[in-house]
């Protein structure tokens, strides 16, 4: 099996957070979204991250820093094992978490390669399915393919998803439990009962319907058997950007499609609201602090993330994500995402997303 992560989008809806970074590299609860995803993929599965030329360097940097962190973590783990055996209780360093934050799940070493699409802008990109097809051809992939959307946070276990694979095209579905909320997504229509392997047979799809027939929505997690890749490639020629459509195509061609339904948190980080909502769920009612943060006379409410080297004084923060090197003084911030290097003094902001380097200083 080979995992392919789609990270080639330009995330224009999340401007200006994605002005200088790709959406999968956005920190979610202090950790890049892509790291959350990669850590969930079982060890031994080679991973290809497909990105565009504009963000290629950032992904390479992410890969190297992740490798360095992994090496450091392994070293610390070894040291901790030694000291634990000697009776010491000292904990390993952790980049961003409070005392109650669990470390990321999984500690698998992954073979990650970065595939760069030859596109510098949205209007030049291949399309998600087009990128998969190109990769299959160029890398001569003849294996089962685990296809993942790089901008999704998946709370469920990908290992458990893979375990249910029976050789038929498989997708992960999330029960959003609200028909109103389901209207914004692709709906998966299924039979009522699951089979022995725990999968449910898919009977149809609805794309962002006005009246959803189900609350089961398609996530960005798919498993394609090697035999279906030829069909995928021919479909991609006419629909290069319709990744969900390939499953609809399988059904219309008489190929059985299965799904696994999960109830764990799942987020498509495509908008300001989704990003903040995901942060609230992952962080909970607490403050997640980075390294070298300074706080003075500050009140926190709800879920807050404070990035490395950020300083806050005489302020009230409610559901705020503060990136690195920010300075906040005498401010009231509510439901805000503040990018790197912002300086805010004497301002009240609500529901705002601030680009890196914004200076708002009330004189």
């Amino acid at each position, binding site marked *: 099996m080979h995992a392919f992560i789609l990270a080639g989008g*330009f*995330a*224009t809806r999340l*401007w*200006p957070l*994605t*002005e200088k970074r790709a959406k999968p590299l956005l920190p979610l609860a202090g950790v890049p979204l892509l790291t959350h995803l990669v850590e969930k993929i079982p060890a031994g599965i080679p991973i290809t991250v497909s990105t565009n030329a504009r963000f290629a360097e950032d992904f390479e940097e992410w890969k190297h820093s992740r490798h360095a962190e992994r090496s450091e973590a392994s070293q610390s783990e070894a040291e901790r094992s030694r000291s634990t055996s000697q009776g010491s209780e000292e904990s390993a360093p952790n980049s961003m978490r409070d005392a109650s934050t669990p470390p990321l799940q999984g500690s698998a070493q992954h073979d990650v390669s970065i595939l760069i699409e030859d596109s510098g*802008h*949205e*209007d030049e990109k291949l399309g998600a399915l087009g990128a998969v097809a190109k990769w299959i051809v160029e890398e001569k992939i003849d294996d089962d393919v685990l296809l993942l959307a790089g901008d999704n946070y998946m709370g469920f276990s990908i290992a458990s998803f893979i375990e249910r694979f029976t050789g038929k095209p498989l997708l992960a579905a999330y029960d959003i439990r609200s028909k109103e909320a389901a209207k914004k997504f692709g709906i998966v229509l299924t039979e009522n009962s699951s089979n022995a392997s725990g999968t449910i047979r898919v009977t149809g799809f609805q794309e962002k319907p006005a009246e959803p027939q189900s609350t089961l929505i398609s996530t960005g997690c798919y498993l394609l058997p090697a035999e279906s890749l030829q069909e995928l490639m021919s479909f991609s020629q006419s629909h290069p950007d319709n990744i969900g459509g390939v499953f609809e195509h399988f059904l219309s061609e008489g190929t059985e499609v299965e799904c696994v339904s999960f109830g764990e948190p799942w987020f498509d980080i495509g908008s300001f609201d989704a990003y903040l909502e995901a942060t609230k769920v992952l962080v909970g009612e607490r403050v997640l602090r980075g390294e070298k943060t300074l706080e003075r006379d500050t009140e926190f409410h709800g879920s807050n993330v404070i990035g490395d080297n950020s300083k806050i004084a005489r302020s009230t923060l409610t559901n705020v994500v503060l990136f690195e090197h920010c300075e906040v003084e005498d401010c009231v911030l509510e439901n805000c995402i503040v990018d790197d290097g912002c300086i805010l003094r004497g301002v009240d*902001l609500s529901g*705002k*997303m*601030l*680009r890196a*380097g*914004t*200076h*708002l200083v009330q004189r």
Partner: protein
Amino acid sequence: MRRIFLTIIWLITDALIFVGAYSVAYFLKVGWIFSSDLPFETFFTATLMTVGGWLIVMITMRNLALSRIQMSPRNFAYIAYACIIGMAGFALSFYFLKQTLFSRLLLLLAGTLSLIFVCMWHILFDQIQRRILRMNPPTYPLLVIGTNREAERLIEKLQRKRSPIVPVAILDGKGTSKTNIDGIPVLGKLDKLEQTIDEKKITHLVQCDQIEHSLNLLSVCRSKGITYMLLPYTLGIIEDRVPAEALEGKQVVAVPRGTSRLGWFFR
């Protein structure tokens, strides 16, 4: 650079026209013979003493501003105020030089001629200036944010009036199927903002849509030294006149309630 050069030329020519108008008034009233009662030399010296102050009044009234429509009642009114102050300044200067006053009719004629000549020159110079500032590459390239009908109206107006601020590119936060408006290309979404600003050497940005991005557009403009403008329509204001006023010194955008023309002065 073009604008600085044009402004210097404008100031020099305005000064010459002011002095010229007063000289013409002298010769029309006194005749082509230099009078011994009202020596031209003293008259001319008083005019030269006045012209600097008059230019300062013109500048402070923003009569040489790029955004000022020269052929408008408002502009004529401002030039008239400046010329009245010019007349007062001239009378005072003359009195200081000669310890006596002179023909009131000559003063009125000089003031009237200065008003007429300056207004005519400003209309003409504005046309010349627009032509020079619009020459490729334009001195003030404008980036338009938004593709709604208000943006279309603005672009059409700027093109039709041959504005010195020339729209060169459009970006739309939501994405649009439009490829151009009135010949101005729609280059994509806001992720192309910095690239467009750098490539097109943008000096002015006008936001016509999506008020939620104002904070970040302002941030980009501040960091790159670009003039930011916002169509009042974006805030839901559809009134023609939206003056910036002050509440106890704090600046506010005012949408006055329907008052009479006289009420405008006292609101």
